[in-house]
Structures are given as C-alpha cells and as structure tokens.
C-alpha cells in the first residue's frame, strides 16, 4: 500500500449551517452561512483559498449542474471549482478532493463545500429521480427506506434474529440519536423520543417505521484544509489532521454473485479495512473514540457497527441494546444526532459529520462534548445495500 494520507493534511477550519426545513433560504444562503463560520474559524481571507470542490447530490432539484453555484454563492476569486457527485458520499468526496490537492502540493489551502436544498419538492422524503435510462427499465419500484429495509430481511435470514428483537435494536438506535440531537442547536430535529414511539410509528417499508428514518432537510457544511506547516505558520496549535480517507464503489458482485447474503454492506467492510490500515488502527473498538455513520435508517446504522468491525458479526443487536453506541457508551455513535436528527441534505452530510468530529477533537462540542476523544470516524453509504458507494474517513489529533 502507498504511504497514504495520514497526517499530511490538517483541517484549518470548518463550518455548518443550521439544518432543517429552511424555507426562507436559497442554496447560496446555506453555503454562505456555513462558509462564514468556517473561514472565521480558519482565520484566513477568502482570496487565500486556491481551489474548491462542491458536493451536490441531486443537481436538478437544487441549483443545476456545474460548479458555478459554489463559486458564485461565495464570490470566490476565480479559482478552480469542481462539482462532485458520488451519491451520499458526495460531501466526503469533496473533502477527499481538497485533501488530495493539498497533499499533492498543487495548492496550500483548499475548500470543500457540500450542500443540498431538498425541501423544494412539495412532498416528504427524498426527491424522486431517475436511476439512469436503462436501469429504470428493470430496477424495482423502490424508495430509499425500501432499499435499506432489505438489510433487515437479510440480517434476519442470516442470524435468525426475531423480527421483534431486530425492531427493538432499531428503536434503540433512533432513541439514542434523538437524545443526542436534542442537545444540538444545529440539528433539524431537536426532540427526544421514546422507544415506544419508535416501535409504534407508522410503517414506511417493513420493518422500517417513521422513526427508523432520518429526516429530510436543507443544509450546508464545509471545511478548509491545508498542510500542517501552513497551519502552523497561520498560528494554529492543536492541529486536527486527516488520518485516513477511503472510498469503495460496488462493482455489482454483491447484487449479482452468490457470495453476499444481504445482511451487511460489503463496501463498508472493504473501505473500513483500508482506512484502519491507512490510519494505523489495529483495534477499532478500542482505538476509535467516536463515529458518525450513515444512519439513513436505523437498521443501516446497526449493520454498519458490524461492517466497521466495532461489533462482532451478529453481535450488533446486543451491543446496541447494551448501550455500547450511546453517548455514554464505549464508542459513541452520532453524538451530534446523526442523519436521524440532521436529515440528509445529500452533498452536505459527509462534511457535517467531519465538522462534528472536528469540534469534538478540538474540545469545542458544547453540551455534547465527549471526554478526550482521540480518533473520530465518519462513514457515508450512498445507493443501495447491494450496490453503493461508501466512504470512510478518520481524523484525529495531528502527530498523535
């Protein structure tokens, strides 16, 4: 393996808009809100940014194609700006592009911005969209919860878990995230819920009920990255650096070949292994302080705990119910409230997760602050359980 990205790039600043039904906001307003926080945190001028990447998942529903939306929203100084789309990993992809640009030496300071304006559709849930001219001819008639509900069936089939036990663990996942989100002023949903509410909510796609689904929100998040040397020269101390940045895209084997049973996400496992190797992590459950994972649906988060090798295979139900991933547990998950409470403005989510890890590692997470976190892991999963794109990022204190 190449030497990897570990400690070559640090986060100079990060920002995140309030997420929610931002009826009054244009995408440009959301971007400006996140960016003003970010650049103030970075302590630089706008004209010091040398390149930028813009992540948007569904261009037709927000701003149209190309990179002008970001460049124009912030009046960036005629620098290279590139639009990136890679399903739900888009935000982390923008961060990866900016990080690699800095690591390569092509530029010293780069911006990654992710945003999405989902609430201009006139209906709840994610916007309807084409899967591609040919794919639409045979892909099933699906919604996002419908696709991820497949994981529950696959998991039950593999481990013989009862529907009731699985649903109980799923409910715990959501109750925990709502409790965390209630402490976060930037979250869309800031209300705690009970397990009873989660268990009895309207069914969306068996066994996923309303409270097993993440919200649907508008939002933007961003980060400015640079080299450790540049950060130091700008007067920064206690640097937060990138330890690993991995991406894995399905090649169709999971859905098309008989070696995948539907109980896990193969790409997450591959990306996680690579990320741990890149970051030098050998005992993830001991070494990873906290995670922000792609909890588009509660069952996705539960399965992801196994796919990140934090729970043993077949052990996530018990670990979840034992509180391992609660705020006061062994490896807190979604300490900011997760997609569950922030919703999932697609391009923004990866950067929103990194923003929280960055705050936590810097001891700036307010009421949510965990004690002395060392490594934070973020995870995005875009597409379907059987064919998808997964990103895994690990950040931590520089040089530690």
């Amino acid at each position: 393996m190449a030497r990897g990205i570990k400690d070559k790039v640090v986060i100079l600043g990060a920002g995140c808009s309030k997420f929610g039904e931002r009826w009054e906001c244009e995408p440009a307003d959301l971007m400006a809100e996140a960016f003003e926080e970010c650049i103030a945190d970075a302590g630089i001028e706008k004209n010091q940014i040398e390149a930028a990447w813009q992540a948007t998942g569904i261009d037709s529903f927000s701003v149209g194609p190309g990179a002008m939306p970001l460049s124009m929203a912030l009046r960036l100084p005629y620098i290279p700006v590139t639009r990136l789309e890679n399903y739900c990993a888009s935000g982390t992809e923008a961060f990866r592009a900016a990080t690699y640009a800095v690591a390569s030496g092509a530029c010293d300071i780069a911006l990654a911005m992710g945003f999405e304006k989902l609430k201009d559709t006139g209906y709840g849930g994610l916007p309807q969209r084409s899967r591609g001219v040919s794919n639409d001819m045979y892909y099933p008639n699906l919604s996002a919860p419908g696709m991820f509900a497949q994981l529950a069936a696959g998991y039950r089939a593999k481990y013989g878990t009862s529907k009731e036990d699985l649903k109980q663990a799923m409910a715990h996942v959501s109750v925990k995230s709502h409790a965390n989100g209630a402490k976060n002023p930037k979250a869309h949903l800031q209300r705690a819920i009970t397990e009873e509410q989660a268990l009895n909510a309207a069914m969306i796609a068996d066994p996923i009920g309303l409270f097993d689904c993440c919200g649907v929100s508008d939002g933007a998040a961003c980060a400015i990255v640079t080299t450790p040397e540049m950060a130091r020269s700008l007067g920064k101390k206690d640097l937060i650096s990138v330890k690993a940045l991995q991406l894995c895209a399905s090649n169709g084997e999971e859905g098309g070949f008989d070696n995948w049973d539907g109980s896990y996400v193969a790409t997450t496992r591959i990306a996680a292994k690579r990320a741990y190797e890149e970051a030098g992590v050998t005992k993830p459950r001991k070494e990873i302080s906290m995670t922000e994972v792609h909890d588009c649906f509660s069952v996705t988060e539960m399965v992801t705990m196994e796919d990140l090798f934090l729970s043993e295979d077949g052990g996530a139900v018990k670990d979840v119910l034992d509180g391992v991933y609660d705020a006061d547990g062994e490896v807190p998950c979604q300490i900011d409230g997760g997609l569950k409470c922030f919703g999932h403005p697609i391009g923004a989510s990866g950067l929103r997760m990194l923003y929280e890890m960055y705050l936590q590692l810097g001891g700036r997470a307010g009421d949510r602050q965990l004690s002395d976190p060392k490594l934070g892991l973020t995870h995005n999963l875009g597409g379907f359980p059987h064919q998808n794109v997964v990103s895994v990022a690990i950040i931590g204190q520089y040089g530690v």
Partner: protein
Amino acid sequence: MVGITAYGAYLPRLRLQKKVIADANGWFDSGLIGLGKGEKAMCNWDEDAITMATEAYADCMGRETGQAPAALFLASTTLPFADRQHSVIVAEALNLETADLRTMDVTSSQRASTSALLSALDIAGAGKGEAVVVAAEHRLTRCASREEMLFGDGAAAVSVGAENVIAELVCSFTQATDMIDHYRAEGEDFDYGWEERWVRDVGYMGILRRAVESLLSKTEVDAADIKHFILPTDQARAPAMVAKRLGIADSAVADNLLQSVGSTGAAQPLLLLTHRLEQAEPGDLILLTGFGQGCDTLLFRTTDAIANKKPLSGVSGHLARGVAEENYNKYQSFNDLLDKELGKRADTDKTAFLSAMYRNRGLVNSFVGGKCSACDTVQMPKHNYCVNPECGAFQTQEDHPMSGVKGRVATWTADRLTFDFNPPAYFGLVKFEGGGRIMMDMTEVDPDNFDIGTEVSVHFRIKQIDSQRGFRKYFWKAVPAA
C-alpha cells in the same frame, strides 16, 4: 389430420365480488341488484391483454424458451397500442424463436379469436407447422353499467397443427354480416350496445343458428351428437335457447362462466373451448362458435390423444386459485376509471427511451441473463465481465433465459413510500435455482404467507404506465408460488 394440439388459459388471480358493485350502484339502477351474484376475474393494475396472453401461451405450451411455432396470432379488442404489434411483444416475452415467425394481431370483433383460429388451421393445413392463437381481453366498462356486472378479464391459447392432434377439425363455416349488436368507436373506452332481446332473437337465434345449420349441412354430423356446444355471450340463457332450436342436447351447452369469470370478449370462445377440452373424452364432437359481425363456426372431433394432453393449470386450475376482492374502489382504480389523487410521487417523468429499450430487450422483454462459458456462473443482467470474482472473464457471457427458472426470496420489503398503484410495493432480492439473482419487483404477494425463502416464479407484467404519452413499460416480476 389437422386440428388442436394443445390448449391453455389464464385468469387474473383477483376475483371481484359482484355484490360490491351492486352495493355501490344498486341505488342508481336497481336492475343491477339481481346481477350482483358470483364473481368476475379482474386484472391487477399490472396486468393487461399482453401479460395475460403471455401467461395463457405458457399454460398451453409450457415455459420452455426457444419454441419455434410457425405462427403466433393474438386476438383481442383491448390491446394497449393502436400501432405496435402486440403479438411480437408476446413472442419476445415467451422467448420464442423469432426468425421466420409469422405474427399477427387480430382484432375489432368478438369473433377475432375464432377467425384467427381458422387462419391458424389453414397454416397448419398447408403443412407450414404449428400455429398458436392466443386471445386475451382486459375489458373496460362504465360504472353502473350492465357490462360492468357481466364482463371479466382473461386469456386463452390454442395451438393447432398436423401432428399429435387432440381435436381434429371436421369442418368450418363463416357468415359475414354487419349486424351491430354493439360497437366501440376508435379512441373510446366503452361499448355502445343495443337491446339484448334483439341481439338474442336476430343475432344468436338468427345469424348464429343459420351459420351452424350451414356448417352441419356440410357434414354427416347430427346436431344431437354434439357433446360440447360453445356459444360465447354475456346472455345467460341464450346458449340453451339456441341449442334447443338446433336440436343440440342441453347437457352439451357450455357454461359461459358468467358467475366466475365474466364474459371475456374476444377471449371467451377460446377460454370456453379450453374449459371444455379439459373435460372432453376421446371421440367427442365440439362445436365452437364466435359471434360478431357475422359468425364463425368450427366443428372438432377429439382424438385418443386428448387424454394425455393437459395444460399447466387450465381454466379449472385458474378458477381454483382465485382471491376474492371486495374493494370496488380498487377495481375502479386499477382500471383507471376514477380521477384519483395518486400523489406527487406518481408525478414523475416516465418517458420510454426507445433506443435503449431496443438494446435492452433481451433483459426487458425476455428476461435473458448471461452464463459464463468459462465458469458457468449465471448473472442478471448479462454483462461484459463475468461477475464471479474468481473468474472475471471478458465477453464470455452466453444468453441464458431465466423466465422459466424458479427462485427464492433472499431479502424483501413492503414499501409504502414509493408510488405504487397497489401499495405497498413489494420488492427484494431473488436468488434463482442454478444461480443468478436480481433485485426485482414482486406482485400478487399474500403478506400472511410470504417471507425470506418463499418460492417465486417470474412473470411478464406492466412495470410503469406513462399516461402522458400513452405508453406502458413491461418487465418481469416475482410472484410467490400459490
């Protein structure tokens, strides 16, 4: 010897209880209350003449792909396109050998299927091989009409040839007469009909009776020797009256299945023929009529071979597997008879990309996957590279038809968020016997008898309807084994 070599049928699983129609509309027309007995076969939202025709052919001829009949004729007056040959869609869905296959849609009359059958018999008689006639009808009726009570949906198929004949054609006679018992104008959904008594007296007792007499006069056959008399109509008592006048025994009069299926229009002659063939014994005389702008009459005599030739399910099998539907609104919704709020999720662009459809027709029309010639791995869809990670060979995929292969549900959900005409939308990963799997839609799911491991077969169904452009897309769906 030329005659029938195989037969089969298809009825939609849903059976609308006629009482619910009477309950809904009896206040308006009390005459409907007396008709509110029994049930009628109704298409699910994803069934039409094409999908039913495909099933009826399979019931008659089996699901083996690569069959090479000389001709495939499709008879129907409810075909979804005015200009697109439906028999070709059916041929591709059945994965027939399409080189040198003669296809034709026969339409515009209730006797379309008997006329198609006569042409098919001519082909077989000319020594050109086996010809298959499929008839299917998805009948639309006005709310609170008599037709709504009497019409049903269904399909049947009959194969004719010169070898392995189970019912030899003795004789035929056709009278062409423009008597308009009813008509349906171009672009109209519904029939406009004339008084039943006039149709009975002038049509059945007149034109049809005289046609039968002309037919019998060409033979030595005595009307009293006829064992099966098929007069397709929505009039319950007409067949017995005509039979009596002709001297045909009352016991020979075929049940028109009005209380179980309904009158299936152009499909009714072959559906009733199939039903009688299921019961016929060697040496039986069968008189088949088809009425509409005149009359077709065909006389068959069964052979010893009939005892050993059965359809997969037949009319009896399909009658037995019905599921009672008591929701009249669902019937109206499935048939697009209501201006119903479908929600914004239904309001998406459904353009059919015809060039891409043509490229993908192996998968879309015929459910053909790929099998690697290097490692035998089966995959859906077919791909340039083998999906087996141990193999990965390039361009080794050979066409591998999967339409007759059984599968099992590996994962599933019932999706209430996505738009579906019959929510919840069931879909999931299906693993096929012998390898291959695909994430696909499921239909006709009984939630109480369905989970991981349920056996399924795949069927050609409507996938999406583009009402804006008058198009409908088809694909395959998994149906749990009954």
